[in-house]
């Protein structure tokens, strides 16, 4: 079966030649919103990091790297993403194995790979590589996918997810599963199969529970009853809820968040930065941020609808929805409606790999939109 060869749009693209040439692609709606979110993020980080300009500068450098990734990705012809998908997937899977074998132990968990000048987390790259691989696998098949095909997809997603969960980084593992799952969802899988897979997932819950580390179990239990553990994990949630709740409509003002500045709030500059924002900028500030996030998601879905082949359509749709999942999981955890799983707030939490990977994803969206061809009627 070689449906791809007859897919329209393939021929005119070939005439364009090497990747990266042609007109400069800059998706202005995406770019402007990204700038707004990162700028807001840096402002909040300055306060959350105890007015340490050095940390803000380091995060600024990471954001600059991220925008560079955005521009580079945006110039690439989308079909190259498709061609590279299996290679990227295999390389990242190899890196994950490398981390598992001799990864540097960072904070008691093996996540980081040291390649001389930079240290990065391969698990972050897998958040992109897994949906690309699934989209690649499904793009030339008749959709909706059949059951045997779904089994392959499940393997594509679960192998890296298990490796990441063993690091142990349950949050990222679940996000990789979400990213791959969203591709399948968008590919038109029937409602019956969706319900069936939810059933399977529920059946696996006890297995997952047994495989979890003690601290992960503690997080789930504490989520169910934060007051049961006021000295440990429950403390985070209690303090974060106080920070958010005391923010009121317009917040205590920038640099005036007592919860954050008196160090009541844990992980202020990383996972719990949303609470700092809510304390200092109030409901108004966080709703503004949520709107910016929705603009990004909306633009991504629009790009997906406009995309011209199955691969780019599936990829664009899943990247946009996964991005929303990040936002929802982080904000939900900080405000106490989801368990604490250690997922950063996208584009705002301090941290490099996540910033660059996400910007690269938006670059891919820009590329998918910017390199469309006018269709023959």
């Amino acid at each position: 079966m070689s449906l791809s060869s007859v897919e329209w749009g393939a021929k005119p693209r070939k005439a364009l030649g090497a990747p990266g040439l042609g007109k400069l692609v800059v998706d202005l709606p995406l770019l402007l919103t990204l700038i707004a979110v990162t700028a807001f993020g840096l402002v909040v980080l300055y306060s959350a990091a105890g007015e340490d300009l050095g940390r803000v500068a380091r995060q600024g450098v990471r954001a600059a790297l991220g925008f560079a990734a955005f521009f580079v990705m945006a110039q690439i012809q989308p079909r190259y993403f498709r061609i590279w998908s299996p290679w990227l997937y295999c390389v990242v899977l190899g890196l994950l194995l490398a981390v598992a074998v001799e990864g540097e132990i960072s904070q008691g968990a093996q996540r980081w790979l040291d390649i001389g000048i930079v240290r990065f987390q391969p698990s972050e790259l897998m958040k992109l590589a897994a949906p690309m691989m699934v989209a690649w696998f499904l793009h030339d098949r008749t959709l909706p996918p059949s059951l045997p095909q779904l089994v392959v997809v499940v393997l594509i997603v679960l192998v890296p997810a298990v490796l990441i969960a063993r690091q142990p980084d349950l949050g990222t593992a679940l996000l990789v599963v979400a990213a791959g799952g969203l591709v399948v969802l968008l590919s038109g899988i029937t409602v019956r199969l969706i319900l069936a897979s939810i059933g399977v997932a529920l059946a696996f819950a006890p297995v997952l529970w047994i495989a979890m580390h003690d601290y992960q179990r503690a997080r789930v239990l504490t989520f169910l009853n934060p007051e049961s553990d006021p000295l440990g994990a429950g403390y985070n949630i209690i303090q974060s809820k106080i920070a958010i709740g005391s923010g009121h409509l317009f917040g205590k003002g920038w640099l005036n968040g007592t919860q954050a500045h008196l160090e009541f709030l844990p992980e202020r500059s990383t996972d719990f930065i949303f609470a700092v924002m809510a304390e200092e900028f109030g409901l108004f500030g966080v709703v503004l941020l949520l709107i910016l996030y929705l603009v990004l998601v909306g633009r991504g879905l629009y790009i997906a609808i406009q995309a011209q082949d199955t691969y780019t359509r599936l990829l664009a749709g899943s990247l946009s929805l996964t991005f929303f999942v990040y936002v929802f999981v982080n904000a939900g955890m900080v405000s106490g409606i989801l368990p604490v799983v250690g997922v950063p707030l996208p584009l705002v939490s301090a941290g490099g790999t996540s910033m660059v990977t996400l910007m690269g994803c938006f670059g891919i969206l820009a590329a998918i939109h910017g390199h469309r061809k006018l269709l023959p009627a």
Partner: protein
Amino acid sequence: MPKRSPTLKDHWREQRLFLSRVAASAVVVLLLTAVLVGRLVQLQVFDYQRFSELSQDNRLRIEPLPPTRGLIYDRNGVVIAENLPTWQLVAIPEQIADLDAVLRDLAALGLVDEGEHQTLVDLIRSHRGFERVKLRNLTEAEAARFAVRRHRFPGIDIQEGLVRYYPFGPASAHAVGYVGSISQSDLERIDRRNYAGTSHIGKTGIERTYEDVLHGEVGYRQQVVNARGRVLLDPAEEEGAVAGLETKWPVPGRNVVLSLDMRLQLATYEALLGSRGAAVAIDPRNGDVLALVSVPAFDPNRLAAGLSRSDFAALQADNDRPLFNRALAGRYPPGSTIKPFLGFAALHYEKRTEHDRTYCPGFFRLPGNTHRYRDWRPQGHGSLDLRDAIVQSCDVYFYQLAVDLGIERMAGTLLSFGFGPPTGIDINGEIGGVVPSPEWKRAQPQFKRPEDKVWFPGETVIAGIGQGYMLVTPLQLAHATATLAARGARFRPRLMIGTEDTFEGRFTYVEPEPLPSVEMDDADWEIVNDAMIGVTRDPRGTARTPLAGTDYVVAGKTGTSQVFTVAQEAKYNEEEIDERLRDHGLFIAYAPAESPEIAVAVVVENGGGGSRAAAPVARKILDAYFAARGTGVVEDYVALQR
């Protein structure tokens, strides 16, 4: 194009399907966002008053309340580790005008260490102004010295605290261990929550192994503090209690009751004092460790109070290695103490009868080889049977026996007595010894070339007198002696025999753990037992002098292990060689020989022969045991439990 149309049709269908999925997803995204915003409205609008109160000018802080550490008793209820009130020097940063000057003045009084100046400055600066920063524990004299000059030090105060105290100091150090400040590596193996507020943790020995039992559970107290963190309300005050502030009291740790008998432990320590070595006494009937001493020892109280970095470095660099637990981790060639076990193997495998005799000319030669394996008695022992060979510790008899038994059978018997792997005593830091065999030698990485991995016949010969590769720890030696005493019954050596509830004092006894026993004919046992009694009673017994005149019958065996190899034609001359290269003295014994209650192993490093250096120590331990016999309380205690 007929071929293309189905694809095209599929394509349209796919696109429609995709569109519907995107639309559905968009709806879900909006719904979830609405949930999020709803939650934020709930927290920030409806619950604002409550959270604002908690946050704005008052807020809740949780102060951990550390539990009191359990005590450690010996088998008779004598306290070996307790918590004493102590004075702590504290600083209140906001009341100190000139920190450098204050610290200099304190150093001039000898209350803080000049070398720690910067550390203390950093420590104090890292706390908030109103917090009381612990600087160090003070002795009573230091506290008094400070108290009369208190007015000169605004911002410096003394307060009461608890410090771990070991009344027997170095005598119990290597068995009980000590507590010290929680280090980075400790943090990785504990539940940090339960240690919020705890400053010390067990580092070695009982203190470390039974850390979970001794520590207890942390409690907490909710306090209302102001925007700068100062305590405004506390549940201990009436207003705080009215405001609904909670206190959860900590659960103190359980007391640990040890098998040690401090009378015996002290006698052992005193007998060994001044030398380097170790002694272990075990009750062969249940594996209870009655005494466990390694010398030189250290003062655990100094470590619990906190040593300065230079003092700790000096302790570690000490040539006599006081921190090293020789009883558990010191490995020595067993020398002739191995002979009773090999004698038993000879009878068991029927390689010798009680009456078989070997002639000892003062040396042994393997057939076809000129190398002379010397006996310790150059003129030889003449013709002897097994009993004579053990009583006089004849080497030649055992050289020949080793060759006849073969290394595999020797190794098998020794392993069954518990030599080789660690015994599994319930305190950490134990390492195993070595029971060599051809298989063992092949697996050793230090023998690199294949021809070095080969087992040589000569290696079997010297294994017959406990030399060569074989290594044992004093604990293993005591355990094996206890096994011999108990006619083959084995128990895992243990120091903890029970725990005690802190509130009600209810004692929970832990049953001893039996290990696979050694198959032993009573007849064989009688022969070996009789020979070992001969060692202390026979006119030619190697330990007749140090054990003369006991009113209990002792079965024993001396041992001397070489540190220094004497050249083939030269003589061992003690005066000529360095003290550190002199032979180690060893002695094993159990008593009363007819129904053994105590088994001991003594090793004295570089002490010369076992008879001269180690046997007198064993004599003192046994004398102490029989002087105190029947006056302990634990037996009644245990009987009451049942």
